[in-house]
């Protein structure tokens, strides 16, 4: 559809609806680069209509109902590949214990998009501004990847390899996201600003998780992840290092914000994005720290 992308029409393709993950993997392996997995379709079908992608084979995985789950066993939260963004945003256990992930999922798209799009699909799209990734990064998420050759676990940090490129090899598919319970004495949040309107692509997205030391006086560890300010979402390590083991003050949070901004490599609206990064990092850290202090009162 080169050059005719303006017609916004799907090209012709062949469609498979495998009944098992094994079947899906073997199809992926058989057709390699000519095949793409189709979950919610809100990213892939859009790219195909624009003429940016033209896979000859689509492997629809909606029939793999075993992959539609959200399970928490007290230690590990597991979200299956077919769990929609809306179901993750609404899940009581996620709202309660992994609140920033619920917030991030709720931010994506519109109600219709969230009913169709999956969390795993959002991660695998691997764009610079995937809202769900920063929260997952600070939560230490991992991806379970399956192929006919076996299984492996990829830490989310190692997953995006560049804009719209992932660490997946031929024949591999992500079957679930695994998220460990956040450490005790921790609180997190996801904050963002959009490009123009409220329902819009994220201009700068910031997820933080702060862990207090046993006295609740100092920050034992701070995790800061950003999206839409670099080719892929990333952890702002230098900003995090500034906070490790320190007592929290407004000045320190501002410094952390500035440090995070310096770690960004935005393309469009670069100066403004750097400014927003420093503002939002400070705001997110402040909110998370306030939440932590609130927790102290409860416990």
């Amino acid at each position, binding site marked *: 559809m080169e050059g005719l992308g303006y*017609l916004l029409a799907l090209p012709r393709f062949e469609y498979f609806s495998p009944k098992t993950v094994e079947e899906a993997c073997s199809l992926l392996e058989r057709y390699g680069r000519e095949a793409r997995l189709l979950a919610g379709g809100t990213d892939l079908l859009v790219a195909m209509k624009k003429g940016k992608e033209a896979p000859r084979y689509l492997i629809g995985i909606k029939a793999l109902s075993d992959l539609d789950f959200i399970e928490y066993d007290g230690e590990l939260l597991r979200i299956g590949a077919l769990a929609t963004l809306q179901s993750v945003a609404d899940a009581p256990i996620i709202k309660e214990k992994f609140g920033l992930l619920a917030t991030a999922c709720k931010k994506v798209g519109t109600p219709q998009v969230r009913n169709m799009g999956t969390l795993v699909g959002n991660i695998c799209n691997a764009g610079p501004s995937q809202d769900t990734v920063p929260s997952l990064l600070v939560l230490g998420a991992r991806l379970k990847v399956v192929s006919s050759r076996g299984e492996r676990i990829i830490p989310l940090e190692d997953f995006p390899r560049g804009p719209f490129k992932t660490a997946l090899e031929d024949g591999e598919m992500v079957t679930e996201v695994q998220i460990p319970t956040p450490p005790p004495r921790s609180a997190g949040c996801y904050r963002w600003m959009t490009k123009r309107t409220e329902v819009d692509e994220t201009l700068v997205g910031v997820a933080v998780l702060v862990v207090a030391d046993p006295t609740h006086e100092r920050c034992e560890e701070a995790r800061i992840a950003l999206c839409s300010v670099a080719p892929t979402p990333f952890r702002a390590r230098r900003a995090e290092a500034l906070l490790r083991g320190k007592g929290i003050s407004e000045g320190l949070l501002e410094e952390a914000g500035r440090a995070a901004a310096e770690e960004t490599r935005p393309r469009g609206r670069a100066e403004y994005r750097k400014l927003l990064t420093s503002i939002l990092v400070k705001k997110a850290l402040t909110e998370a720290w306030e939440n932590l202090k609130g927790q102290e009162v409860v416990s």
Partner: protein
Amino acid sequence: MRQYRVIGKPLRRVDAGVKVTGEALFAADVKLPNMLHAKILRSPYPHARILRIDTSKTEALPGVKAVITGKDVGPIRFGFVDTPRYPADQYPLAIDKVRYVGEEVAAVAATDEITAIEALKLIEVEYEPLPAVFDPEEAMKEGAPKIHDEIVPNTTCAWQDWGVGRAARPFKVERNICATTSISYGDIEEGFAQSDYVREARFFVPATSHAAMEPHVVVASYDPTSGKLDVWLCHMSLAVKQYWLSKTLGIPQSKIRIHGCYTGGTFGGKIDLFAHEFLAAFLSMRTGRPVKIVLSREEVFMACRLSHRMIIDLRIGVRADGKIMAQHVKLINDPGAYRGSSPVVMFLAHAFRIPIYDIPNWKHEGVGVYTNKSICMPRRGHGSPQMSFAAEQLLDMIAEDMGMDPAELRLKNVRKPGDVLPNGDRLDSCGLRVGIQKIIEATGWKEKRGRGNYRGIGMGLSAMFSGAMYYPFASAAIVKLNPDGKATLFTGQSEFGQGSDTAMSQIAAEELGLDLEDIVIVSGDSELCPIDLGGFLSGGVYVSGEAVRRAAEDAKRQLLQVASEMLDVEIGSLQIENGRIFPKGNPQKGVTFAEVVRYNIQKHNGDPIIGRGFCKPVPEVEFYPSLTKGAGRFTDAYGFIVAVAEVEVDPETGRVKVERVTIADDCGQPINPANVHGQLLSQVVMGVGDALFEEIVTEEGRIVNASFEDYKIPGVYEVPEFVHIPTGTFEPKGPFGGKEVGEGARAAVIAAIANAVADAIGARIYSLPITPEKVLEALEAKKRSR
């Protein structure tokens, strides 16, 4: 305020029922037997010569029924403007050159859409890219790429066909200039000499998209036996489409039927003839089958018009006592690769401002310049939003210099009822003064102005015509009485969301003393309905509504005449109410409409009762005023808007939140207050989009944000609080006192928001949209200048 039976009541829209059930027919819903689907091949270059087009592979593809290029169609000129001075400059398919990304190059009709698309892939076009120019000031320089050569009309021009009488002449394009305008009166030098405060500034307004929810679509079906062409398309005027289809296809107008169907929003983006409309008809004639062309949203952005880009150099002079003495406008209009509505928008940028302030010395100079970008046409206000953004801000700047409340400065200068404009238009109604006074009170203007804390309040004024002398120069209507005594109304107005079906029905019902439910309306069909000005000249109520009223009045006259005979009483002593006619004070002795109709048929040779009515926008003149000189009567009544916006700015991020917009509107007597409220709220929300984030962004002439992902329009979260203050004037010449309301407010809202932001941050922003970065930059600049 007079009390009416149905006028002035917020009655339910007559078209809402079919729209909430999904039954309403839009052009995209039309399916005809044996129908083909066509797709268009568009230029990927902003400027290139077409060296060769090879369609041989395309023709061989099974399912393809026709492939056409510029060679098949020929140099058939069309355009929005086609006057002796400015001959139309567009072609349905490019002939030797393409001039903007998205221009139509070839078309294929096939049995289904995917085949048509596959067929397009097989068309081989060899282009020779040419240097392109995208900035109008660059385009006017020596040595800039030449976008057009001499434009030689090969047919009569529209003006000639419409009776102006002067033949079209070749238009020699120099320095890429497509049109000029120069309007002046008084003595501009003298005006500035008498001014104590003079300010000047340059303002920039980008192109925006109408972004109506319905993408453009056409279904055309030509029958060779009868020579008739049936068309379904989205539009704002049957007459404009019918005339141009006739002219370009060589089919007599009476043989072209534009079928009635609903249009899904227009805002000015569906007025002029589009290439795809011609192409569908042409392909239908060629294949002998109906042809449907549905444009994608991206095609709509590229090829279905944008609003006009303008660079405005404005200078205003004010005397110490607050009287505005002089206004000098130098405007550069960038309509894109073809003239679009350039001469009109430049004229209107003047014509929509002159009714607002009484300024004795005025000079308005404009130049339209070709660039290799998408074509610009009217968008809701057509010149008023751009010019108001500049003028309303400059007035605020001068008020600040003078230490005067900007509302006060406006009160000292706004026109009043009875004023006569330099071109002869008379304001028989004008609610500006009372609007400003009411809004100052309602918004707490004085207390809020300059309150600091990054909260601001600002005002903007606008005016809008109520119809103008443009083809077909009049509206007419027919009211037919039925055997059951109810009435059927035929009007050429088309319902595209603005509520005309309801408003026209209310007018007819009021005149006849019936209820809204007693009127059946037949609208928007060129074969069933009489001529109409259409909905893009803002004359829906004032002109078409008046034609409807006169038709109902004519029917009423006949009813009374017959009733007087039946009852053997003088007409003058009869009363009409509720579908009955009776002597005043004696309702028992009366006759029903049904009885009158029956009597008339029986006793008067079969005469059923049919009323006809017609109305010219400006009774005293025959044609549109001179676009270049601005001389001549323009319209018979103006709608006025006073808008106040309240904003809050985050000084850290630069983000602007519009908290509230208040509008005092003068639309004369509202025909349907719910409709009026809907039109105003619509323009408030549109204004927020224009003011804060809407703009078409191009790279080397290509629109990079041609989707609703990348071009954002306001969603439900962007809606501010809206307060409506009807000013309750009465336009004596309008139907039941009504005039324009659908188009003027957008300009006032944008200006009010711009002025509110300036009040909030103490600094000015001279270009739209007012982005967070511009706000931060303005704040920075203010800090540095201290």
